[in-house]
């Protein structure tokens, strides 16, 4: 008898792992019958999770923490036993703005482009028409990464520029209509804007933080307690899906699956670009490869590092202009559950980091680290400004940020 699990998702390329776990039979092989429910807003994905329409969900990582801490609704503890991927988002601007930051068809340098953007932001603010950025949700990595970049370049979010929420399917429309000057969104929506000539990709979020946590598998803490075995089975199925996803041999096939109407209902050509880390930045230009644009598997990318949850918490506090509350910090850290990931994969060939937390942004080059099964090579995990996040001192980190 297989157990049924229902997983909610938004039609984005990084919903790939649950979809592929179902389509390639990885879930079934773990004794799970996986049902997927597509929605059009994070609010609805969250409602279904909280009111039992779904057991788990594809979710922007900060939303899992915000829900646990009771931001916007009564607190409901969520758990994250698996990270669905790192990065995979980009900053796409209206062509006229993009061209002040970079040559069409070339990715910008985050520092130089930030300096140029600062000038534009100043001009626009003085003209009484401040630059407007669209992000997909206030509790999203998109919002935090964009703000991290802007602030690091001397542009004050909410003061020098406006940041508002735009639903992903409307991002290209919003750029075209001039409702926003730039968007920070996941795929395929940057590529859709590029295809329509509504925008040009200027920066990838991987350039802001090379190993930034993005979507997670979230569930109610109570469900994790009650259905621990099923959750661990799902973690194993998702790891297999991740391994399959990054293999170039499967890119065409997986792009075709994700493009289907019940999933992304999109263009397989655009989806394949994201999967293969090769994006068209400006209409009529060349495809530009950027390794690690999406980061779904290598370097134990799916391992829920407690330090990632803590970094997200510092950013939440940062933009709420609040202070670190040690009880909240403890709850936020507790959302990420490396213990569940480990117990699901113990005895497998997957590398299991020995530590549960790490100093983020500290690796400039390739580093070999110990795991429970030998060693693993990690590449750069730097922030664009060289910042280092030590989870041992959240308040100190926050105080040093601009």
């Amino acid at each position, binding site marked *: 008898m297989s157990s049924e699990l229902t997983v909610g998702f938004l039609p984005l390329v990084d919903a790939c792992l649950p979809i592929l776990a179902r389509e390639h039979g990885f879930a079934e092989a773990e004794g799970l019958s996986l049902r997927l429910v597509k929605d059009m807003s994070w609010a609805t994905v969250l409602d279904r999770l909280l*009111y039992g329409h779904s057991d788990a969900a594809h979710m922007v990582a900060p939303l899992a923490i915000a829900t646990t801490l009771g931001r916007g609704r009564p607190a409901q503890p969520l758990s994250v036993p698996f990270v669905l991927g790192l990065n995979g988002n980009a900053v796409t601007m209206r062509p006229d703005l993009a061209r002040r930051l970079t040559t069409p068809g070339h990715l910008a340098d985050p520092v130089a482009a930030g300096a140029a953007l600062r000038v534009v932001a100043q001009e626009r603010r003085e003209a009484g028409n401040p630059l407007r950025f669209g992000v997909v949700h206030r509790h999203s990595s998109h919002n935090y990464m964009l703000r991290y970049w802007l602030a690091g370049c001397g542009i004050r979010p909410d003061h020098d520029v406006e940041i*508002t929420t735009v*639903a992903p399917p*409307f991002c290209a429309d919003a750029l075209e209509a001039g409702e926003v000057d730039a968007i920070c969104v996941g795929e395929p929506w940057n590529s859709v804007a590029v295809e329509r000539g509504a925008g040009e990709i200027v920066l990838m979020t991987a350039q802001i933080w090379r190993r930034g946590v993005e979507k997670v598998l979230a569930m109610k803490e109570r469900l994790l307690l009650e259905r621990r075995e099923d959750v661990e089975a799902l973690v194993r199925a998702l790891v297999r899906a991740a391994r399959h996803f990054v293999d170039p041999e499967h890119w065409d096939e997986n792009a075709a699956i994700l493009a289907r109407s019940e999933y992304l209902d999109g263009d397989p050509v655009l989806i394949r670009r994201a999967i293969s880390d090769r994006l068209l930045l400006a209409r009529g230009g060349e495809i530009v490869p950027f390794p690690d644009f999406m980061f779904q598997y290598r370097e134990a990318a799916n391992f829920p590092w407690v330090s990632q949850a803590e970094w997200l918490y510092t950013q939440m506090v940062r933009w709420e202009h609040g202070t670190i509350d040690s009880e909240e910090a403890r709850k936020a850290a507790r959302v990420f559950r490396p213990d569940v990931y480990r117990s699901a994969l113990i005895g497998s060939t997957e590398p299991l980091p020995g530590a549960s937390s790490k100093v983020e942004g500290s690796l400039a080059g390739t580093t070999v680290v110990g795991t429970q099964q030998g060693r693993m090579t990690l590449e750069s995990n730097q922030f664009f400004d060289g910042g280092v996040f030590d989870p041992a001192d959240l308040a100190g980190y926050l105080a040093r940020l601009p």
Partner: protein
Amino acid sequence: MRIAIVDESASRAAVIGEGLAALDDCELFVVTERRALVARIAEIDPDIVLMDLGNPSRDVLEEYFAVSRALARPIAMFVDESDDEAIAASIDAGVSSYVVDGLAAHRIRPILDLAVKRFNAFARLQADLAEAKGQLAEREAIDKAKRILMDSRGFSEPQAYAELRRTAMNQGRRIAEIAEAVVTAHQLMGGK
């Protein structure tokens, strides 16, 4: 009480609105346009906002409620813990509701209950419509298949139908499925 119904489906918004119109001292505003949604809501200055769960603009609206100072009165999702059951029912029906702070539960409940009922009624209507459409399509396929059999094998109409029914029974499938297979095969063989 000012109630805003945000729904990109104009027909559903009409069904909901019709139900709520029966309530005393309620003013209804239907918003079906996505563009300038937030500005429109600010203009309406509602006490209650009802929005379908499938609306991609939910996150936009929630953001607005959470951070905007444009609204004189803060709006929150209807999350009074004691009314968890009511929220569950509205999520089941596919409607989310946002209520201005401080509005008494006894004033909200009848509106929510009614909205849930109307949403459910609309879902039933749609299911009926889909079924009716499906039946129509099936009947058309059967008629076409009969004609193909009559032309190609010289059957009379009752014979053609009997042939379809016999094949369906033998294969344990529905007559409409066999009819569709006949039509598809005929098209592949160059028929029209």
